């Protein structure tokens, strides 16, 4: 196996696998090394007596828009997206809900019932703008190489949609809501939560465009039929057929550098594997400081790498196997709220959402608000015939002042569940048959690349986004070390299972290795390029 390898990839997560599949279809000889016994990284579905718990990612925010879906024939390899018509429900008090749908007109009806027609039309105006910007510019840009900010601004400034995006790029999420005059706090709270849930700070200027991306993605999310691990299986099936090799239970401890060039890796068992290119899907500290070594790096790069910021929050999840599907009190007034993919309970106002994040930053346990997903309602294969699978998650700090997750794990889960049950009309019937509490410390223990539970390998800050991810010297997947590339969530466009880093890195590496770039730019991306909205 060794000797004639073209590419060795560290980490069999979604990006490493995507990269492997593209490069091997370009006739490169590719080997993936995985520390765990199972592939997929954050695409982890585990079977608890027929209850399938998606321990990390639950839903996909890009779905069929991910170019690998077509390029790698993922449908033929069993990847199906289930896109629930009801996307999110935000529960107020104990018996009211605001329900948001794939179809914005239906969302507007729910908003109108709760907050009046004027508020509904402001929502529609906001949604119209972000939808257009997402479809024509922001989403296709995910699958193009990152462009330096000045060039990007120049390109965008020539069109109306581009100007919107540039304006948003100056604003904070709250300023964006103000701009669209969305005043009703219940509507504001719902949008703020959806748009900021994945680590966008509500009052941080300079990331409003990310808020637009996340609100849109959170209202167009899809499950993978069978569980998120199915996406991993599909990509790998495609990769295997193209000849990719994988070694599990193989931890890489060193990236071998000879004469300033990366030539291979050394495993924990002492095996040396050489290849023309080495690709790490791990965060920068692990790739460079641990595996390359500071002695091989310029001091300025070492400083930059050490300044890499992780998220100040992580996720707590409790995975439940129930006897019955939960029903909400609010279903009397808003009949579809219980059918939502994301059911958000425990927040009374937008201030409470902001306070929730502040508590995370202050390393305090936040109030018992959570997002609930009744997975098997959408996909019955994820539960046994006589049960229901539900996931309850909450944004929490990695570290708790004066306590530990070992101590807080169970009581915090108890509080989340009790708070959620308060909103249910059949709390005494659901019966918890299985429960698995999964605190941030477990995230890191299972997937050590998520340092301190940082699920995106690094915070979404203006200085760590776009062209700057992870830093200008390592932008566009190459590094100052010839032969060494990066392609994980710490590279553009970031985390969240978009397959973007792996897809974009494939282009860069294929060009550098003079491989045949066999894949075509999808039409919706080409359209964006033609309109001058996409690099």
């Amino acid at each position: 196996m060794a000797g004639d390898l073209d590419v060795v990839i560290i980490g069999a997560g979604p990006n490493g696998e995507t990269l492997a599949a593209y490069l091997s279809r370009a006739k490169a000889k590719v080997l993936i090394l995985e520390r765990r016994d199972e592939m997929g990284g954050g695409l982890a579905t585990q079977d608890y007596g027929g209850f399938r718990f998606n321990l990390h990612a639950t839903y996909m925010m890009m779905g069929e828009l991910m170019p690998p879906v077509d390029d790698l024939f993922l449908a033929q390899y069993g990847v199906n997206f289930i896109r629930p018509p009801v996307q999110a429900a935000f529960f107020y008090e104990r018996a009211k809900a605001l329900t948001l749908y794939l179809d914005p007109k239906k969302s507007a009806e729910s908003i109108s019932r709760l907050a009046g027609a004027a508020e509904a039309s402001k929502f529609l105006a906001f949604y119209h703008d972000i939808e257009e910007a997402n479809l024509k510019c922001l989403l296709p840009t995910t699958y193009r190489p990152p462009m330096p900010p000045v060039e990007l601004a120049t390109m965008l400034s020539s069109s109306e949609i581009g100007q919107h995006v540039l304006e948003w790029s100056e604003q904070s999420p709250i300023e964006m809501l103000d701009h669209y005059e969305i005043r009703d706090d219940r509507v504001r709270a719902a949008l703020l939560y959806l748009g900021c849930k994945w680590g966008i700070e509500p009052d941080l200027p300079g990331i409003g465009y990310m808020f637009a991306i996340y609100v849109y993605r959170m209202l167009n999310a899809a499950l993978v039929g069978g569980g998120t691990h199915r996406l991993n299986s599909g990509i790998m099936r495609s990769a295997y057929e193209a000849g990719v090799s994988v070694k599990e239970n193989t931890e890489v401890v060193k990236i071998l550098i000879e004469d300033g060039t990366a030539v291979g890796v050394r495993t924990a068992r002492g095996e040396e594997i050489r290849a023309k290119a080495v690709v790490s899907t791990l965060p920068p500290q692990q790739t460079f400081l641990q595996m390359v070594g500071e002695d091989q790096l310029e001091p300025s790069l070492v400083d930059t790498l050490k300044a890499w910021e992780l998220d100040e929050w992580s996720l707590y999840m409790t995975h439940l196997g129930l006897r019955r599907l939960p029903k909400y009190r609010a279903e009397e007034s808003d009949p579809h709220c219980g059918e939502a993919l994301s059911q958000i309970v425990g927040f009374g106002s937008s201030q409470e959402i902001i306070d929730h994040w502040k508590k995370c930053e202050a390393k305090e346990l936040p109030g018992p608000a959570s997002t609930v997903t009744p997975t098997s309602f959408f996909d019955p294969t994820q539960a046994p015939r006589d049960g229901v699978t539900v996931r309850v998650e909450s944004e929490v700090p990695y570290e708790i002042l004066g306590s530990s997750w070992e101590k807080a794990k169970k009581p915090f889960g108890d509080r989340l569940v009790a708070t959620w049950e308060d909103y249910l009309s059949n709390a005494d019937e659901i019966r918890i048959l299985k429960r698995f509490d999964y605190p941030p410390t477990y995230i890191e223990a299972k997937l050590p690349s998520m340092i301190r539970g940082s699920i995106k390998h690094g915070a979404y800050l203006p200085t760590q986004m776009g062209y700057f991810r992870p830093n200008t010297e390592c932008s566009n997947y190459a590094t100052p070390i010839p032969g060494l590339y990066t392609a994980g969530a710490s590279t553009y466009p970031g985390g969240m299972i978009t397959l973007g880093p792996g897809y974009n890195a494939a282009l860069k590496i294929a060009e550098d290795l003079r491989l045949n770039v066999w894949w075509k730019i999808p039409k919706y991306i080409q359209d964006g390029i033609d309109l001058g909205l996409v690099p």
Partner: protein
Amino acid sequence: MPQVNTDFDVIVVGGGINGLTAGAYLAKSGVKVVVIEKGDQIGTHCATEEYATPGWRQNPHASGIWTGHSTAMMDLELEKFGLDLYVPQFSRATPYLDGKAFAPDLWNANRTYAKWRKFNEHDAKVFKDIMNAFVDRRQQIMRAFVYSPPSVENWDTTVRLFGELPHVPSDYLNLTGYELIDTLFEDEQLKAQLAGWQHACAFEPFLKVIGPIGALLLVSSFGVQQSIGGSHQIPHAIFRCLVHHGGKVLQNCEVTKILVKDGVATGVELGPHASYPAKTLLARKAVISNLTPVPTFLRLVGEDHVDPAVARVLRNYNYWGVLFTAGYLSKQEPNWVGSEFDPDLKKAWHFNFGADTLAEVQKCFSDVDRGRIPEKLAFLGANFIFSKHDPNAAPKGLHSVQLWAEVPYRISRHSGPTDWDEGLTQDVLDRCTARLDEYAPGFSKGIVDSFSYSPLDISRRNDSAIGGVWSGGTVQPGQLYFDRPFLGCHPPRTPIQHLYLSNGVWPMSFSWLGAGHNAALTVLEDLGIKRPDWWSHEPLEWIPTWAKRNNVTLVPKITD
């Protein structure tokens, strides 16, 4: 993508290890094959999961692995495809509460013989004679008994080879396992150990025919292997072999129907949630079911296509024989009683304990038969310290210990198995912990995490494992050898033309990969394809090559 797929010669229903094995053998022989699995993961009964603390890898089903005996190790080059098996020296170790202990040495028969002598000179002599004669015959026995489809010829060979072993009475098939053990041996603890091991392996000692054969096989058993990285590496390796040779695997696809036309199986239909586009797949040559008999015939084929007499037999099919799994992540390994008597106990990774006398073994199983949790829980067959030879099995500095307790699926005083949802699981877990503390005092003080896996969990995860059974159906008269799964079936062939079985037939489950091998062999024969040269058909070839590579000297015969 068309709704009907006609690409395949052979369709295998069920991606368990035997289904994958059948598929891989056929794919490598040039047959176009697809394996269809309902679950997300292939190899359900070879799962590796992290049910509790991450980094703590449990194997809730197959744990001690018999795959190293298999023809597939060499034929399918499973090591090349990533399988890393370890052959531990001390397996099936037993601590007894009176301070004695028995830890057979599976690398060196002389050392095992010395251990028998510490218990009983007479028994040791009998063991020596049987073991030495068995070693000369074991490849033949395994070939005839496990790695060949059931036939009169193979049965006669098997019975003759066992009958030739010294001390075995000529009418041995007429004895139960208990009776044969009693005839051969004197020592109560050794007898209990053997009988318990027999129960656990489903060679039920209270039966004639299979009872005495099981006793002789297990007296001279060669021990189990550990799959480094977890048991799930076995299906991974077979899968990669299958795909490498052009086979396909469809996961998350429930087969809802095996299509039968004029008594011939023609293909399958997939359920509404299947993840692949085509909903009907036609098989040009054969359908192999890797499901157990009831789901195969009553659910998928349907009673319309099954002889009423067969349907009646199947409705009464016995799926008895289940296990409760208790797992512990611990700061220390169990400090077993008896470690002074036999210090090798500390080096062992695989244990049987909890029934110290034949009477205790019988009491335990009699409780289980009556739908009771045994008063004295016994852990027979497979209790492992996974972290012993695999540092990846537990987070650094911690140990992974797993117990299998013999329990009933349904608790008789209630109606169904849902007691396992109602607090029984925690209750049995607590009792397992307490019982382990009797045999390893103080163990529970070092526990940092635990998990449990009930028979209801097993059947919910895999509804082919009816009643949580692991063996594909109880091994008992009417469900044994030729008659397995039912009289008139001629397994792996079935009364339905072009329909074959790779599970629930003889040999029963384990991780022998025998049933999958035999199904492939039979299909190939029926297709008129000559067995390719790489298909050696020889079991037990891998272990000596492993030993040589690892500088382990195997001493299979007793020379002392």
